[in-house]
């Protein structure tokens, strides 16, 4: 069956004229695929009849949105969905991905019962093999996280692996992760089942209908132009898979969806002499870069090679589609790896080498959410070859997003708005996916920086800092210094520096932190997003007072730290706002807020011409002076006294000049450069939460001890005020807490990263969100949220007493370390040097 489909598609693709209007597939119950005329209007139009589109349609219809039209240019489930290897694996690195996969698993399992369409669902379980200790650590981290969200899994010995799978060579293994509830199934059938269920719920499905472009008026979706006519609609969902990028750009108001396809190969064999049982577990051998599942008595095996072949760089390309052929030479390393893992397969006969392009994104996470440029334009694409695993969950979150305005989980990590404009260039994407695809099976270690597509945006001081030994990290396309390597010191090569333990820059950052505490350091923070809001009258103040929770009606020259909240009181942004004059404000937000915050402001600001919002990120270089002598340096530079009460705002035009002056004046105060790692250590030991890591749209100021930054009674309503009032009355259900690891050996033990489970009196209560080594406390500090689950699993109010009266442990890759919980920072430790600049530090959102 499978092969026949393959051949059909191959032939179709070879004939361009027929590609867009291929005949309906006979074997599908064509009930859902109508040839009738399109409706003139609908609430939602979904483009793409793969697993993503059908899942969104399914969930929308379940949530009560029935006026939905799904369009597919060819046949349903005929794209990447058709070629998918059919492995559902919950062993993912991100908790949100684990949750999506877990939901998908549960959904697919009951789908056959619900729709009557066979999906081939078999619960085989999956085994991820570790050939090295580092890989085993990585698997143990996944294991800890899986367990706390209720997915059974365990770390097993090689011997146990051999028992579970008869053909495996286990001699080079050090261990494995077994997830018994993982499954294999046919993704095409899943998509058909979802479509059929959706169609029963009222969703109209049209195949052989291609979307040409989306009609946009005033930044709002108004309809869809197809090759069969127009449909008016309020919402459009782009689930076009590898064509999503092209489709996004086809609008008048382009929507950039940064993804790029790569060729992906897997092998199909004929059945084994004694056909493999259908319950044989799926094997993932990341060190060998391959996956292996049983398939019709034989095996299906593919992998993610080191030298990927990007494809469709210039969009849909007939030549490339025709050339999608088996490339055995390219597959050779994976085949070697397969035969090393299962030597007995040598005699197995080859059926086919399948070449199915998969889409990848610049950071290996899928893309979902609403476009920042066009309201009502939603995207769900870029699955990094995990479409089947994520399909159910991602479709559900997107449907929730559309129906309720926000998903039930924090999906910032997957939000389309995490990307900036520069990250959607074709060249960038092509280079980056060539790095991302091998990374699928590379060891994922803390603080990994992508190597390709760098230097998209740099500070004017980049060359200056680079010459002084700066090592760079990238955030939102912006280069930021991590730390400065002294001239006499060498760091390890990139590959060797991968570690879960103490990193090689430990001493470097220590000296930078020390300098911040004792003298003065300068950090280039130009990457921060900077907006200016001005108005002719008081409109700017009015709208900002409505959007932000703190009171912004402060004297000119003052800086206010405030949250930008949503209706639920959760943080949409956490920023500093300076009042430049009566009618203009300067807003400083985290780097990756550039797109998100802009979209939020644009959405909520009245289209009033008297109100001007300008992105001035490019216009300013930001230098941050940290340390007890910072005031001295600045006073000397500006010939003006600087005290905590009097801090004149200075804007200088020549960044390089200022930097040089600061460095030369600062010399006698012991000034030096510092990087973001030092800043991160400082902010975490000061218990300072950072948006995007600790804070997200589901956390409120009350939950992280920031009542003082919320002025509930500032005299006017603001977004989220109602929710906060209610929360104040009812109490919070989670509390941001700081943990100091007690019995942790910095040199010998695994370092915490983020996402480690927190145990209170042996009970799971939450996960860490960030961690760093505190050079002051000489301990590791983890930040995280503590919840209070009742015996039945319900969330209960978390009180300070609850936090204080527990014994805590942090689980790092299966090893639990004792930790002390704190609700407030160690002020006493810092008071002896506490000055204005220390207060400023906490306002600068160092990450």
């Amino acid at each position, binding site marked *: 069956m499978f092969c026949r489909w393959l051949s059909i598609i191959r032939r179709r693709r070879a004939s361009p004229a027929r590609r867009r209007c291929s005949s309906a597939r006979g074997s599908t119950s064509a009930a859902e695929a109508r040839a009738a005329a399109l409706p003139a209007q609908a609430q939602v139009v979904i483009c793409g009849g793969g697993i993503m589109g059908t899942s969104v349609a399914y969930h929308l219809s379940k949530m009560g949105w029935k006026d939905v039209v799904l369009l597919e240019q060819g046949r349903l489930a005929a794209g990447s969905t058709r070629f998918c290897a059919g492995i559902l694996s919950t062993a993912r690195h991100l908790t949100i991905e684990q949750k999506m996969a877990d939901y998908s698993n549960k959904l697919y399992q009951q789908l056959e019962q619900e729709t009557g369409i066979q999906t081939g669902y078999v619960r085989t379980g999956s085994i991820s093999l570790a050939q090295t200790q580092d890989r085993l650590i990585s698997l143990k981290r996944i294991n800890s996280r899986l367990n706390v969200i209720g997915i059974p899994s365990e770390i097993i010995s090689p011997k146990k692996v051999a028992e579970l799978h008869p053909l495996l060579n286990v001699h080079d293994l050090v261990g494995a992760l077994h997830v018994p509830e993982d499954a294999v199934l046919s993704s095409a059938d899943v998509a058909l089942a979802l479509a059929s269920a959706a169609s029963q719920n009222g969703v109209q499905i049209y195949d052989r209908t291609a979307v040409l472009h989306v009609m946009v008026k005033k930044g709002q979706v108004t309809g869809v132009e197809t090759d069969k006519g127009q449909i008016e609609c309020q919402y459009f969902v782009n689930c076009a898979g590898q064509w999503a990028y092209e489709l996004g750009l086809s609008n008048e108001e382009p929507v950039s969806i940064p993804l790029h396809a790569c060729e992906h190969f897997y092998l199909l*064999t004929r059945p084994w002499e004694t056909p493999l049982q259908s319950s044989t577990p799926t094997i993932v051998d990341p060190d060998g870069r391959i996956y292996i599942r049983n398939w019709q008595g034989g095996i299906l095996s593919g992998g993610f090679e080191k030298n990927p072949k990007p494809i469709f760089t210039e969009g849909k390309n007939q030549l490339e589609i025709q050339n999608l052929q*088996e490339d*055995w*030479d390219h597959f050779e390393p994976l085949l070697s790896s397969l035969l090393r893992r299962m030597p007995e397969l*040598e005699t197995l*006969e080859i059926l086919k*080498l399948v070449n199915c392009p998969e889409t990848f994104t610049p950071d290996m996470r899928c893309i979902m959410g609403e476009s920042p440029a066009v309201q009502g334009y939603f995207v769900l694409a870029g699955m990094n070859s995990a479409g089947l695993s994520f399909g159910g969950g991602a479709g559900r979150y997107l449907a929730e997003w559309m129906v309720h305005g926000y998903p039930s989980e924090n999906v910032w990590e997957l939000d389309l708005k995490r990307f900036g404009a520069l990250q959607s260039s074709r060249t960038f994407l092509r280079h980056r996916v060539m790095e991302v695809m091998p990374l699928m099976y590379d060891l994922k270690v803390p603080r990994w920086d992508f190597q390709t597509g760098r230097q998209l945006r740099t500070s004017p001081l980049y060359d200056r800092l680079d010459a002084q030994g700066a090592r760079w990290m990238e955030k939102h396309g912006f280069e930021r210094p991590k730390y400065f390597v002294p001239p006499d010191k060498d760091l390890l090569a990139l590959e060797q520096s991968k570690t879960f333990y103490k990193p090689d820059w430990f001493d470097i950052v220590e000296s930078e932190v020390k300098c911040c505490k004792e003298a003065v350091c300068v950090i280039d923070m130009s990457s921060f997003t900077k907006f200016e809001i001005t108005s002719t009258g008081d409109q700017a103040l009015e709208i900002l007072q409505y959007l932000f929770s703190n009171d912004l009606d402060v004297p000119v020259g003052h800086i206010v730290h405030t949250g930008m909240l949503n209706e639920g009181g959760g943080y949409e942004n956490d920023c500093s706002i300076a009042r430049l004059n009566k009618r203009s404000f300067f807003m400083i937000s985290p780097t990756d807020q550039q797109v998100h915050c802009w979209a939020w402001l644009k959405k909520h600001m009245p289209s009033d011409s008297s109100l001007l919002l300008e992105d001035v990120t490019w216009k300013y270089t930001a230098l941050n002076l940290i340390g007890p002598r910072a005031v001295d340096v600045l006073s000397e530079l500006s010939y003006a006294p600087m005290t905590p009460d009097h801090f004149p705002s200075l804007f200088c035009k020549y960044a390089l000049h200022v930097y040089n002056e600061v460095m030369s004046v600062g010399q006698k105060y012991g000034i030096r450069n510092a990087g973001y790692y030092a800043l991160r250590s400082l902010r975490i030991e000061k218990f300072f939460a950072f948006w995007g890591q600790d804070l997200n749209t589901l956390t409120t100021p009350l939950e992280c001890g920031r009542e003082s930054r919320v002025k509930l009674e500032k005299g006017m309503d603001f977004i989220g005020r109602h929710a906060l009032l209610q929360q104040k009355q009812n109490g919070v259900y989670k509390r941001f807490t700081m943990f100091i690891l007690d019995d942790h050996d910095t040199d010998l033990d695994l370092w915490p990263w983020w996402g480690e489970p927190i145990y209170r009196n042996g009970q799971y209560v939450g996960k860490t969100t960030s961690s760093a080594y505190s050079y002051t406390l000489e301990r590791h500090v983890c930040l995280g949220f503590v919840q209070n689950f009742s015996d039945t699993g319900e969330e209960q109010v978390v009180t300070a007493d609850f936090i204080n009266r527990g014994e805590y442990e942090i689980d790092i890759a299966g090893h639990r370390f004792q930790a002390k919980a704190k609700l407030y920072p160690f002020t006493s430790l810092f008071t002896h040097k506490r000055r204005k600049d220390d207060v400023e530090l906490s306002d600068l959102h160092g990450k």
Partner: protein
Amino acid sequence: MGGAIEWKGLSDPVTSQSWRGARFSSAPAPPSRGPLSASPPTRHCAANQEAGSAPARTYGRGREAAWRGRGAEWAGRGRGAASRTGLRGRNAEWRHRCRSLLVRKKRAVFCRARRMCVCPGPRRSGIPIRSSSLPLFSDAMPAPTQLFFPLVRNCELSRIYGTACYCHHKHLCCPSPYLPQSRLRYMPHPAYATFCRPKENWWQYTHGRRYASTPQKFYLTPPQVNSILKANEYSFKVPEFDGKNVSSILGFDSNQLPANAPIEDRRSAATCLQTRGMLLGVFDGHAGCACSQAVSERLFYYIAVSLLPHETLLEIENAVESGRALLPILQWHKHPNDYFSKEASKLYFNSLRTYWQELIDLNTGESTDIDVKEALINAFKRLDNDISLEAQVGDPNSFLNYLVLRVAFSGATACVAHVDGVDLHVANTGDSRAMLGVQEEDGSWSAVTLSNDHNAQNERELERLKLEHPKNEAKSVVKQDRLLGLLMPFRAFGDVKFKWSIDLQKRVIESGPDQLNDNEYTKFIPPNYHTPPYLTAEPEVTYHRLRPQDKFLVLATDGLWETMHRQDVVRIVGEYLTGMHHQQPIAVGGYKVTLGQMHGLLTERRAKMSSVFEDQNAATHLIRHAVGNNEFGAVDHERLSKMLSLPEELARMYRDDITIIVVQFNSHVVGAYQNQE
């Protein structure tokens, strides 16, 4: 290197270093030879000190290090550690080792090896160890070796000179007080037949020694072979503008493999900045490298000046006159080992200036079109004339005086290509060759020769020579396929021995420096020397209009052409450049193939592929084939290793210096030109 030169025409423009790449000074140089000897002398020391015990340490990047290390090692084996002076022993050892491989080829190559028979045969055998060769290296010293000079001091100088360093090069390039020994009398050509006889004696000699030393197989490892082959490789890609290459040239790869020490071949490549087009050339020196060096430095300036329009010449002259900055004329594309001599730059500049001044004066203001063919011929002739004049006039500076004489008394052939859009001109003097690689419609490769060799194999050249001299000289002017029985190329730069009258030669030699006077070769007058000049530098210019199927041009010295057929050359380069080595993809189709079978097949294919991908440079790839090809036309690593590990005093017997430039054309641009018209 390769930067656009700027003539800062101050009061004395020539003193500005930028006129030529200042990578050469007359400071006493370390006792290693030629552009290849860039390996640190410390290695030599180590090799010599630890002869036989730790040879692996000596296999440095430079082939010399490898040779020396090995030489020392074997000397150590044969004679014990005391044989530091055992050069003779080393040679003998070597001969014996190489013999089995090369005995068949020896006779044929041996005569061929010496383009200039004046230098008698045995010069490469039984070389005495010299300890006073220090100043001799001053003319051929690449910059890197100078950096090592301080290191040399730390070693025992005497030992280095006594063992590792000697100059066996008896040409004017490296004259030596030891030359006037009895070995160096003129040996008329027929003597070559008998010359081989002494080698039979070697055979006996070495044969006897075979049992004294442990027979062992020695091979260079593939990385060592690569480091030797790639030491001189250079690639240039024409920069793209706005993502597009608008030049008809995509770029070029060049490389050279020495057989002489120092190498006598030279190469040059430069972009004309005041006119369009690119110049590329290979120069094969004989009787030393002085002439080929001078030609490689100077010829492109002469050509560029000849191509310049009147106004530009005036502008340049005015700039020089008023001490203003000059327009850059050429942008050189040079390998770090391609050096320019600093000392002579002023002299060369003055000669060049005189040339353009004459061009300015000669201009009648009528014709504005400059004929490239004519310009090339004029430039060649003018440069040769200047070389000759400079030697006659001499120079008050004794070093320069000696230099110009060495340039004039040695010789060089030249093969230069000028590419401007679709117009390809090849100017050739001597026996280097320009070959065009043409891809036929069926994908196969054919070779189009764009130059004629000027040697005895060329009937028209024989005819020309006979016509230019009286009938009674018809038999003596070409003997043994050589000009006057001596010189293989029939056209060349320098070689004033074949150009000046006997009187002039004697006068110049007598008034010349002592070194010249002591040199037997320079004093020697060719036999039957009645009606000079017998030799000219006038090139034969071929014009070719590029077509889209013309994919590349190979310029190479005869070292390549005598080892490989032109058809093979074009095929190897063509397949290399178009990636023909990418084999046909495998498809399973309907066959029954098991995973194991497929795996075996793929592993085999990958092994094959990796050998091709070793080279990133077409010229290197070609040299690999030229030196390492076995009778089946495939590169044989064993053979390659043996050939490359020949000690330098033997290398010349088995191959000549090889210099190759492969220019790749841009078919799109060439095609666009064609469509325009």
